[in-house]
C-alpha cells in the first residue's frame, strides 16, 4: 500500500492487527510481572510508548545514515541495543532532575524498559519492513500504544479476576498467559477490518 495513507495504516496496524505483544509475543516479561497492578501498568505503558517512539526514530537514523552507507547492517543488533540503553539512561537522569512527580510515576520504570525486548523488536521490524522515517515514527508510536492497550486490558481483567476462584495451579502467570492467548485471538479479529501486514 503506497501513498499518503500508508503511515496511518502502519499506525493502526501496529496497534491492532500486528500488536507487538499479542501477535509477536514480545515484551512478555514486564507484561507478566507488572500487569498485576493497574497503576503501575499505566506508568509502565506510558514509558513504553515514549521510549518506543523515540528509539525507533533514533535507530532509523543510525541505520539509514551510518550502518547502511558503510555496509554494516549486520551490526544493527548491538548498535540498536546501545542506542536504546544510552537513551533510556539519559531520559531517566533528566526526568529525575526535572520532575519529582514524573519520576515517581514513570522514571522508576525506565530501567525496566532497557531490557524490554519489544523495544528492540520494533527497531528490528522497522529495518526488515523497510519503513520510511514517517512510517517508522508511526510504527513506533503505534506499537507503543498497542503494548499500552494490551497491558491495560490485562491489568483490568486481572483486577476482576482477583475475586474469582481460580484453580491453584493456574494462579499468577498461568492464567495471565491463557488470557493473553484469548486476547491475541480477539485482536486477530481486527485483521478483517484492517487487512494490512
Amino acid at each position, binding site marked *: 500500500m503506497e501513498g499518503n495513507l500508508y503511515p496511518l495504516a502502519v499506525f493502526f496496524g501496529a496497534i491492532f492487527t500486528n500488536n507487538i505483544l499479542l501477535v509477536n509475543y514480545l515484551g512478555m516479561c514486564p507484561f507478566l510481572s507488572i500487569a498485576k497492578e493497574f497503576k503501575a501498568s499505566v506508568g509502565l505503558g506510558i514509558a513504553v510508548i515514549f521510549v518506543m517512539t523515540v528509539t525507533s526514530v533514533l535507530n532509523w537514523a543510525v541505520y539509514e545514515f551510518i550502518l547502511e552507507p558503510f555496509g554494516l547492517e549486520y551490526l544493527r543488533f548491538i548498535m540498536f541495543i*546501545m542506542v536504546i540503553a544510552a537513551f533510556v539512561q539519559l531520559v531517566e*537522569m533528566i526526568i529525575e532532575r526535572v520532575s519529582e512527580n514524573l519520576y*515517581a510515576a514513570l522514571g522508576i520504570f525506565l530501567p525496566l524498559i532497557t531490557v524490554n525486548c519489544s523495544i528492540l523488536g520494533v527497531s528490528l521490524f522497522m529495518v526488515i519492513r523497510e519503513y520510511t522515517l514517517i512510517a517508522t515514527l508511526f510504527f513506533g508510536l503505534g506499537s507503543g500504544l498497542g503494548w499500552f492497550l494490551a497491558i491495560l486490558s490485562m491489568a483490568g481483567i486481572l483486577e476482576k479476576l482477583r475475586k474469582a476462584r481460580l484453580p491453584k495451579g493456574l494462579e499468577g502467570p498461568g492464567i495471565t498467559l491463557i488470557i493473553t492467548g484469548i486476547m491475541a485471538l480477539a485482536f486477530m479479529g481486527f485483521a478483517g477490518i484492517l487487512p494490512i501486514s
Partner: protein
Amino acid sequence: MIATLLISVAIVTAIAVFLALLMVIADATIANYGEVQISINDGSRELTAKGGVSLLKALGEQEIFIPSACGGRGSCGLCKVTIDKGGGQVLPTELPWLSKEEIENNVRLSCQCKLKQDMEIKIPEELFSVKAFETKVSSIRDLTHDIKEVTLELVDPPEIQIEAGQYIQVEIPPYELTDEEVYRAYSISSPPHMNSLVELEVRLVPNGIATTFVHNYLKEGDTVMMNGPYGDFYLRESDREIICIAGGSGMAPIKSILLDMEHKQINRKTSYYFGARTAKDLFMVEEMERLEKELKDFTFIPALSEPQEDDNWEGETGLITEVLDRHLGEDAGELEAYLCGSPGMIDACIKVLQKKGIPEDQIFYDKFA
C-alpha cells in the same frame, strides 16, 4: 577487505565512544547534585555527602550502617529510616515495604532515596556504634549434630563493644548457592567483656544460603566480614526475678547475658528454661551447670519434648510451654522474661507468660526468623 574491516571497527568504536561520552557528560551535569548536608537526629550529627547516591550508600561511606540484607536493591525492606526533610515523594519501589502509618510518619527505605537536597533524618541512636569488622575464623566446633559454634577473632578494628544479647550481620560471599553476597543476622553468644572476639551459634537449615555456607564451606583461618552490633534484646536494669526461655540456637544471646551477669556479679534470681527435642539436641549443659555454681541464684531447666528410650532422661519432659505452665506459680506477675528462638515457640510462650500475669512490658524477645 582489511579496509572494510577497519572502517567497521572504527565506526563501532566511534559510536560507542560517543554514547559513553554522552553518559559521562550527563553524569557530570544532569546527575550532579553537588554536595548535600545530612542532619541526623535533630543535628546531633551533621555530615556532608556527595549528592546523587542513595542515602543508604552515603551513610555507609560515613561508617553509619543501616541494617540491610539485600545490599540496596529494594528487595528486603530492612533499611528503614525516618526522613523528615528532603526525601521527596515515596517511590513505587518502596510501597510494598511501608505500612500506612509508616508513610504518614515519613518512614522511607534509605536504599531508594537519592540525595538531591539537604536532608533531615532520624535513625536509632544505637546505629552510631555499628561498625564494619574484618574477622578471622579462629575455631569451628560442633555443639550438636546440626548446630556449630563459630568463633570469629576480630582483626580490624580489633575490639567490639556490645550489650549482651545483641546480634551482628555476617556477610556470606558468593558461592554455589548464591551469585552475590548476602547478609544474615546471628546473635552473639560470647559476653561483652570478651571484646576481641564474637562467638556465634549456627544451626543448619536445609538449603539455607548462610547456614549451608557456615556448615560446609567455612574453614578455620578464613576471613569473614561482619557488621554490628544491632538489636534491643539485652538485660534491663531492675531487681526483678529473671526467667530466660530458649530453644535450639536461641541459646546464644541467653548465654551471653548469663556470662555477662557472672562477670558483673549480678545476682538476681534467674531460671533458664531450654527446650530441645531429644538428648542429642541438648548442648552447653556443663557450662550451665558451672554457672549454677558460680551465680548465686541460677537454675537451668532443660526440657525434652521427645526423649528417646536410650536417652535415659530424668529431667523435665514435654513442650517448653507445658513445662513453663507447670513451673510458674500464680505470683509470676513480677517476673522479667527474656525469650529467644523460633517465632512459633516465642509466640506460644508469650501466651503462657501473659496467662500467668506477666505484663507485656516485662517480656523481651528476639525472634529467629
